[in-house]
């Protein structure tokens, strides 16, 4: 489904990714793990188009993604969340989720200005859809809240709802449970499993190993911009290179 081929990315001479190649199979949850600074977020940004890779290609179901502007990709079914939250703080929860529906309702200037009955009807449908999504995430009560006054956990869920409301085919999650407590983490874990059950293809970046091991079908390990290992959770757990990448780093910083 998603093919990453030889992706490389430099930041001012410093390589963040070099020659990364792997695949995400349709309907699978693929986890991308690695120590801090390994280049995981950089890769997610390359896939969603926020960064342009220097080398390599990205294919989604045979369609070449790299080179396309970022705003085209949601129309091809790519949805994402951000590591450090990227909500619109002054908009309400409902409005944030409505923004996620852009791929379903490319608004035209003239129609928006005139607000004809047909436009109003369409916007009502979009609203219902967004409200349904909020309901699924238990956010109905807070739909009129500006997100700036929400708790961190709620914000993370709003962002997930915003990514899901357009029904993407590929979901990129950049550390969805970072900073959440055990209960909230479990809730997101359940959600990921539910999406997996519904057949969504997921690329998950996460440091929480319990979550990664319990939800993923396949794991890719990144270290210093290189894919050093990949396999099933069982294989990865016992792979000496992975242990080295993590523990070596830890003993160096400790």
């Amino acid at each position, binding site marked *: 489904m998603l093919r990453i081929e030889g992706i490389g990315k430099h930041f001012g001479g410093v390589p963040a990714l070099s020659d990364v190649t792997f695949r995400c199979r349709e309907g699978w949850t693929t986890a991308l793990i690695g120590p801090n600074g390994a280049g995981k977020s950089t890769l997610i940004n390359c896939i*969603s188009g926020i960064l342009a890779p220097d080398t390599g290609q990205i294919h989604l179901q045979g369609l070449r993604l790299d080179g396309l502007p970022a705003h085209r990709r949601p129309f091809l079914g790519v949805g994402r969340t951000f590591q450090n939250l*990227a909500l619109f703080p*002054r908009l309400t929860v409902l409005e944030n989720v409505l*923004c996620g529906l852009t791929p379903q309702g490319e*608004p035209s200037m003239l129609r*928006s200005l005139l607000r004809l009955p047909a436009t109003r009807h369409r916007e009502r449908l979009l609203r219902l859809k967004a409200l349904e999504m909020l309901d699924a995430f238990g956010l109905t009560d807070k739909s009129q809240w500006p997100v700036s006054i929400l708790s961190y956990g709620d914000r993370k869920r709003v962002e997930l709802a915003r990514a899901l409301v357009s029904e993407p085919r590929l979901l990129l999650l950049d550390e969805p449970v970072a900073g959440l407590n055990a209960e909230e983490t479990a809730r997101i874990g359940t959600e990921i499993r539910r999406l997996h059950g519904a057949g969504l293809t997921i690329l998950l970046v996460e440091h929480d190993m319990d979550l990664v091991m319990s939800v993923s079908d396949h794991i890719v390990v990144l270290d210093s911009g290189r894919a050093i290992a990949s396999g099933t959770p069982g294989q990865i757990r016992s792979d000496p290179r992975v242990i080295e990448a993590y523990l070596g780093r830890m003993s160096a910083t400790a």
Partner: protein
Amino acid sequence: MTPRDKILYFLRLHRTGLTVWLLAGFLLAFPALAGNPYVLGISNLIAVYLIAVIGLNLFIGYAGQISLGHAAYVGLGAYGSALLTIHFDLNPWVAMAAVAAAVAFAAFLVAIPTLRLSGHYLAMATLGFNIVCHTVMTQWDQVTGGPSGLAGIPPLSLGGVSIDDEAKFHYLVWSFAIVVLTLGLNLARSSLGLALAAVAQNETAAESLGIQVGRAKTRVFVLSAVLASLSGSLFAHCFTFINPDSFTIFNSIELVTMVVIGGLGSIWGSLFGTTLIVLLPEFLHFFDAFRDIIHGLILVTVLILLPQGLVSGLRDLLRIKLLAGRNNA
């Protein structure tokens, strides 16, 4: 639902439309209430400004961009209308539409390179554009009449009736203003308005949701320039006389002040801000020397206390209060 609930629900659902109708009704009766042409003249000025201010608010308040040069577009509209009607004897309505179209095209050309700029670079580019336009208006005196400007601009006419007194002009400009207000409110409530707000608050996130950031900015910029041009055309026909002094960077800053005081991202706020700034000198007759200081003080105080502007700021505060109250209950 009891009948009372039904009425309340109806009012809530249609609150925006009803408010516009209410305002329109009031304005319909206004000439009879005011009677005095001087008062009408001031209210007409509010309407003329309002058209430009709503456009600017869409650009600054909703799309989160900065323009310190919108008076240039007002000026292009005014000079365009004046020149076409004086020198080419064109019908004022046709001139108005032609100028608006030309300004739209010009704004589109300016937007392509300009809107790639961000923050202070955009501030500089728009300021620079305003200074260039103003200098040309002042210096190219064979065409623009130089510093003394152009006089004898023919009035607009409708169905054979020449719109040449304050009362007739009242109905004309406020019709325009109400239409623009309605269009602005529509846009603000549409998904395009939401997309603009998203662009203002986080471009990267907006882009990754499928919003074409560059295109959205360009469209709203062109729209705001067209509204500014319309405002300028009406200004020219209203006063039948124009000179470059009305289209300086200080006028641009005055437009921005109207937007900011009323509220970034609040169309009703623009009505409030424009009214306040136009009326202020009337109240401050005796303090003419203090006018700038008071102007500046209002702007600074609003920005310090309610950075989103009076109307938007109070609305947000109220909303949070209400939510907090409901939560405790």
